[in-house]
Each structure stands twice: as C-alpha cells, then as structure tokens.
C-alpha cells in the first residue's frame, strides 16, 4: 500500500454500515499535501496582510486628499460668499443713502415716492431676477414702501434686523428663511439722516439661488457628486439652495473639522465654515466613494494580483513538496521491492540535495546488504554442503558399522559356541569359562554397537512433529519389559492421557531408555515401583520417571548423561552407558531439558520437559480427565 492511500472503511464487515471516515486532521494528510497547505496558507496570510496594509495606506491617503480638498473648497466658497455679501450690502447701502430715498423718508409724498421707486427699480424684477421685493422702512419700524408695486410685504418679522442696522455698520445680511417654500434672505442697510442716526431702512428680499452661470461654475468647482449646503450658524434652516434639507449632524458647525457621517445610506465626509460678515454657514459634502473609488479599484486589482500570486504559490508549493516527496515515494517503493528480495533494484534519484544524498546512501546500503546477503548465502551453502557431506559420511559409516562390525562378533560368538559344543570334552572348565567370556564379550560389543548407532541415529534423523500419546508409549514399552522378565513383581503407575507434540519414534526411544533404566535398576528390589507422570512446576509441565531402584550418588550426577559413562559396575547392572546420552539428545532435539535426582539405594527420579505449544489445551484435558 502506498503512502497516499487510505484503507477503505469496514472491509471486513460488509453487513455493517460504512464506518465513518476518520476525522480530518493534519496528521492524516500526506507530507506532500501538508506541505502544500502550509506554504499555501503562509502565502495567503502574507498576501492578505500586505493587501490590507497597502489598501489602508491608499485609503488613508485618498481620504486625506478628500479632506484637503474639502478644506480648500470651503475656504474658497466661504470667501466668495463673503465677498458677494459684502458687495451686496455695499450696493444696498449706497442705494439706501441716495438723496431720493432720503427725501422720500423725510417727507413721504407722491413725488418723493416716485423718486425713491426709481432708485429701487434695479433691485426688483425684472432687473434683478433673484429679487423678490424691496422695502423701505422708516425709523419707527413701519413699512413705508414696497416694490414692485402691489407686492405684499414679506411676512417675516424684520424688526431684529432693522434694530441691528440701527447701529454700526448700519447694514446686515439676515439668516436664511423659508417663506412659502422659497429660500430667502434679506440684505438690509440703514438710511442715514446725515447726523449719524438712521432715518429708515432699505430691505432687499432675495431668493437664495445662484444664477445659472454661477451654478455651473460651482458644479465645475465641486464636481457632480459634491453637495453644497447653506445654513444659519445657529442651525435652524439648511438648504441646498433649492429646497430645505435636513440639518447636518450637530458638531459640524462648531468643529471646523472634517466630519464623517451617513447621508441616505451613503458614507460621506463634510466640512463646514462660517461665512464672515453673515450669520451663514457653508457646508461642502462629498460621498466617501468619490475619493475611495481609486482605493477600491486599487484593492480589487491587488486582490486579483494576490489571487494570482496565491495560485502561483500553491502550484509552486505543490511542485516543491512533490519534488521532496516523490523521491520519498520512490525510496519507499524501492524499500518494499528490496524487502521482497529483489536486491538489483536501484533508486534512480539524481539530485544534489539531501534527498539525493539519502538516495545514494540508500543505494550503497542496498549494495552492501546484497553483498552481505550473497556472502551469507554462499557461506550457508558451503556450510550446508559441508554438513551434507559430513552427514553422508556419517551415514555411510553407520551403515558400514551396522553391517560389517556385527558380523565378526557373530562369528566369534557362533564359533565359540561351536567350539564348546563340538570340542567341549577336550576343554576343562576354565577353558569352557574362557569361551563363555568370549561369547559374553561379543554380545556386549553387539549391544554397544547397537546403542552407539541409535545415538547417532537420534542425532541425525529428521524430526516429524505430531501429537504423541506418551502414556500409550509408556504402556507399550513397559509391556515389552515385562515380557522379557515374566517373573518379576512390580507396581507400575502410568498417568493416562499425557499428550505432547513431538517425534513419535524418538520419544519412544527416550521412554524405552528411561523406563528400561528404571526397570533395570529396580530389578534387585522385591517389588519394583516405577511411575511415569506429569507435574506442573513453576508453570512448566515436567514429566518424570521414578523408580525405587539402586539410585545413584548425586556427586556423579554430572556424569549421568555423558556417553559411555556408567555409575554402576558391569557386574552389578549391565549397560553400555549410552542410554541416558540418547535420552538427553532426544529431549534436546525437542527443545526440552532433562535432569535427575537420586540417592544411593533410594531410587532415582528423572525429569524432562517437552515444550509444547498446545500446553494450555493439555492442562484442560488432564484436568477434565482427572
């Protein structure tokens, strides 16, 4: 399975609903995807921060431009308005002090009235299209004359203005008023009597509306989206010069700072400035977007560029992480191929970086592993061949011993017997005894040869592991022993159901030797007692063969299992000294141990273990059986 795959869910339990996919986690991702994600996020963050920062900068600069522009515009407009109001008041003042006006106010009559009307003619329509009417008031604040003829006097209470004009500088512009939906103001100048006292007042009532050419100039100056508002400093009337409008946020009139607020859902910036010499206040208002359009365009462009950079970066990151992980994949693949035994596989990564170094180190390692594998195989082959030839020689030797060594013994034995039978009368008893010794010796030699061959066979024969019933084997061995010496009285206990895993033939040889020994060394007891069974000691199953025979001195226990080692004289017990060596070899070939305890004349107990993977089962069985 390659590193990129994830195991499918619930393959072993098709009847279950599919197991929920593993929760998403960075550690579930391959290095390639993780690296791409990491670099991508990094690029994203960097781009986002730089876009945000530069957008903020551009925006601030644009707003600053807007503020500067507002400052200069309001300055210009306020100055213009101030000049025109001064201009207006001067003209009004000049007209007010015309001798015809003065004469009319001193002595109102039809004649003087006509003269005054003529003076006032230029201040009323049609000569002054913005003018609503002109009025003359006397010093007692009574209306003396209204132009044009027949016009009703304007309804506002003019007294405060007239009073204002009764002192220096004897002229004033009124606050803006809305009269019958018309935005109006008045310019008032005192008519002086020559002694410094007002004789009356000339009040010009005008519409607050610039002439079309002035309007155009303003539009050129401000731009189409700007708003220009006039109002009274104390804020009761506000107008865009066509109609009344809502009052701008409070504070605008007092701060003289650029103020931001919302108008009709749009964010705007505005700056107000008083018009000196008048109670008026001028406000220029720009929607923010006028200035922010460029910043927003800049932002859009930056975002596009950022996205492109991000895509490029992701592609680059993917390519980079691929270039890192691809060699890793091919190393992984190589490792699995090589662990499959193909040492000829070479990782083909030509790079000068760390991964290249890793790959070449890997290749060197593979070559080394291959070489040492070959060396190992070669030496194993050589060793095997040596062992095989040694084994063959041993087999040939055994075969030859088996066939050729026994024949002369048979002849010695046979012809000695023949001598005894045919020429016995020519020999005395000593001579006959010698011949019996010859026969005995040949017999002993025969046993020795048989035992040595068996020992050799136990060592080199092939092991076949199967379930072996040791109890049955023991019964059969004991039956043979009893058959050989029918007269003996003995008590023999064999635990039933002792199963183990091993080579039946070898285990039989082992039991034959152990039980044979027990049988042999207890032969001088009145009643031989022999037991074969199993104990559990320290969690280990231990078999034992116990007898009540001659026993042995524990001082010589080390010699017990050596070949040709005997602890008893031949006159006491016959034997070749090979049996226990054979037992030990059988036990060792089964991976077990054998040891003995005994005391002279108090019997012996031989214990052995046969490691068995089915041990647990055995315990249960024997428990059930018991």
């Amino acid at each position, binding site marked *: 399975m390659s590193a990129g795959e994830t195991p499918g869910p619930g393959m072993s339990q098709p009847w279950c609903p599919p197991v929920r996919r593993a929760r998403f986690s960075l550690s579930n991702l391959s290095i390639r995807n993780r690296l791409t994600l990491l670099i991508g996020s990094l690029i994203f963050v960097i781009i986002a921060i730089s876009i945000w920062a530069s957008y903020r900068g551009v925006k601030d600069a644009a707003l600053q431009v807007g503020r500067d522009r507002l400052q200069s515009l309001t300055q210009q407009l306020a100055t213009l308005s101030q000049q025109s109001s001064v201009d207006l008041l001067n003209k009004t003042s000049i007209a007010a002090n015309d001798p015809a006006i003065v004469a009319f106010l001193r002595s109102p009559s039809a004649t003087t009235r006509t003269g005054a009307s003529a003076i006032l003619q230029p201040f009323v329509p049609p000569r002054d299209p913005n003018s609503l009417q002109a009025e003359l008031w006397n010093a007692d604040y009574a209306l003396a004359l209204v132009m044009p003829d027949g016009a009703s006097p304007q309804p506002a209470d003019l007294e405060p203005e007239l009073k204002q004009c009764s002192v220096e500088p004897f002229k004033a512009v009124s606050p803006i008023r809305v009269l019958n939906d018309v935005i109006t103001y008045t310019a008032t100048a005192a008519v002086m009597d020559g002694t410094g006292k007002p004789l009356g007042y000339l009040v010009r009532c005008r519409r607050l509306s610039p002439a079309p050419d002035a309007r155009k100039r303003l539009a050129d100056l401000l731009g189409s989206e700007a708003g220009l508002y006039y109002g009274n400093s104390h804020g009761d009337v506000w107008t865009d010069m066509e109609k009344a409008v809502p009052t701008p946020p409070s504070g605008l009139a007092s701060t003289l700072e650029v103020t931001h607020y919302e108008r009709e859902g749009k964010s705007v910036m505005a700056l107000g400035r008083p018009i000196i010499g008048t109670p008026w206040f001028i406000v220029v208002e720009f929607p923010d977007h006028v200035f922010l359009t460029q910043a927003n365009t800049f932002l859009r462009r930056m975002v596009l560029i950022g996205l492109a950079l991000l895509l490029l970066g992701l592609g680059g990151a993917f390519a980079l992480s691929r270039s890192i992980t691809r060699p890793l994949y091919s190393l992984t693949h190589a490792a699995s191929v090589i662990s499959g035994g193909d040492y000829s596989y070479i990782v083909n990564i030509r790079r000068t970086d760390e991964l290249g170094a890793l790959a070449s180190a890997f290749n060197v390692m593979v070559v080394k592993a291959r070489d040492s594998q070959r060396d190992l195989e070669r030496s194993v082959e050589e060793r095997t061949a040596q062992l095989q030839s040694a084994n063959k020689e041993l087999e040939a030797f055994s075969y030859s011993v088996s066939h050729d060594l026994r024949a002369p013994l048979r*002849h010695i034995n*046979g*012809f000695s017997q023949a001598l005894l039978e045919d020429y016995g009368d020519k020999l005395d008893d000593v001579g006959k005894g010698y011949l019996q010794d010859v026969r005995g010796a040949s017999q002993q030699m025969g046993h020795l040869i048989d035992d040595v061959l068996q020992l050799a066979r136990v060592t080199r024969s092939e092991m076949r592991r199967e379930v072996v019933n040791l109890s049955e084997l023991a019964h059969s061995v004991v039956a043979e022993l009893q058959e050989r010496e029918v007269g003996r009285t003995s008590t023999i206990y064999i635990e039933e159901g002792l199963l183990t895993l091993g080579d039946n033939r070898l285990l039989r040889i082992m039991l034959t030797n152990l039980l044979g020994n027990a049988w042999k060394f207890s032969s001088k007891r009145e009643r031989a007692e022999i037991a074969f069974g199993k104990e559990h000691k320290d969690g280990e199953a231990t078999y034992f063969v116990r007898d009540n025979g001659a026993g042995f001195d524990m001082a010589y226990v080390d010699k017990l299992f050596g070949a040709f080692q005997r602890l008893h004289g031949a006159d006491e017990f016959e034997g070749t000294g090979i049996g226990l060596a054979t037992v030990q070899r059988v036990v060792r070939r089964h991976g077990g141990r054998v040891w003995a305890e005994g005391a002279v004349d108090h019997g012996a107990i031989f214990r052995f273990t046969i490691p068995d993977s089915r041990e647990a089962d055995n315990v249960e069985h024997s428990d059930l059986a018991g």
Partner: protein
Amino acid sequence: MSNIVILLVEDNPRDEALTLRALKKNNIVNDVVIARDGVEALNYLFGDGTDGNVNVMPQLVLLDLKLPKLDGLQVLEKIREDERTRRLPVVIFTSSNEEEDMIKSYNLGANSYVRKPVDFEHFLDATRQLGLYWLVLNQIAPER
C-alpha cells in the same frame, strides 16, 4: 522333504557355516543351495539350462543384503520383476537393522526382515523359527 530347497544367498563363508550349523541343529534338513553373490543367486533362479540342469525352484530364499556384484536389494528387485519368482518367499537375513534397509526391503516386496543376532543361542532360535514358519507353516502359492 529333501526336495524342498532353501536358497541361502550369503557371501561370508563363516556366516554360511554358522547358518548351516544352525539349520542342522534345528533339524532342518532341506537341501540348502548356497549363492555367494547376487549374480550367482540370479543364475540359480533363472538359469537357462545351458549347463544341462533346470534348477529346482526354492521354497525359501534367505537373502543377505551386503553382497558382492549385485547386492541383496537388487537381487530382490529382479526376483520380484520376474513372473516365475514373483511370489517366491524371500526373507532378508542380515546383520543390519538400519531403518533404510528395512523400508527398502519391504518396498521391494520382501516377505520378512530378520536380523541375525550376535549371540548364537539367539541365532539358533531365529533360524528355528524361520524354518518352522516358512518351511512348515507357510503355504506357498501354487505355480501356474
């Protein structure tokens, strides 16, 4: 009874002498034909009569394994291959108790495998039992 022939295939003259002695001591008085190697044994069995005699088919073959020229197993193989001797009782009578020898012998169709005991008393006993069984008790297949 004397026409009942035993074919003893044995290269060692001492073994031959001991075997003959044992047969005699057991009162087995049949004709014993000795073959000293495998070729002699086959010649006796399959002799074409060029020497003027067609040999009497033995009732029992006592066959040693280690023999000059053709060994016992090869002789046994030839005996079992030939129609005339396919059912001939052949007892392997040898020194060895090598497992390999026993298995091969039985695989090739030996009727018995008897190891020659070292002790002559046992040897006598073995010979007696062989004679009793194969020459007296055993019924051989009728020739057809």
